[in-house]
């Protein structure tokens, strides 16, 4: 369940599906645990800039295309 208080929305699941990546594969590629990807995807955990940049690089897009402010 996504955290409704989280001011940050993300499209990681969509990008993962597009790139045909599982959470485990994505986690391995950016050097974190699968749980971290899972919690970021569900909006439970707000990642650091470094992880956000690594995710964007992995998906081949800008950070804004992965993360958006909800307000």
């Amino acid at each position, binding site marked *: 369940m996504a955290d409704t208080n989280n001011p940050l929305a993300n499209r990681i699941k969509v990008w993962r599906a597009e790139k045909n990546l599982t959470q*485990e594969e994505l*986690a*391995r590629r950016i*050097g*974190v*645990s*699968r*749980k*971290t990807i*899972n*919690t970021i995807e569900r909006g*439970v*955990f707000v*990642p*650091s800039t470094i*992880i956000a940049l690594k995710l964007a690089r992995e998906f081949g897009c800008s950070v804004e295309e992965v993360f958006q402010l909800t307000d």
Partner: protein
Amino acid sequence: MAQTTDQVLAYRRMLMISFLVGWGAWYGFFILRETGLQSLWGEVVDIVIGVFGMVGWLVFAVALWRIFRLRKRYRDDPAALAALSDELMRSQRASAMRVGLMALIGFQIVLIFVGQPLGWNAVQAAHASIFIGVAAWVCAALWLEREID
């Protein structure tokens, strides 16, 4: 890496539970003896509790040894080590330590009121405080690291 990060995390969680149960039994029974609370029950119960305490110490020692061995196993694999201690886990670890510290401080405040009526000296109070603090810390770590899908 032979095992996936998920498998290693599950194994580490199991080790933490063993650590908590073993250490809790050993140190808890040690505190009961130190504080003289064992006088509340008979000799047979005292022996049974002593045996539980010793078994607890064994469980604790094995868990601790396995934790060190796990760390050693991944020392030469920086990528795996980084995944096992990423920013989510570091943040959860810091939160768990905060819980442990708050529990310890809270218990110290409680001790101001109940320490004297119980007749505990400073050493006994220190043992009990360490027990509460560490138990709260490990419990909080286990709670925060639980898997919710």
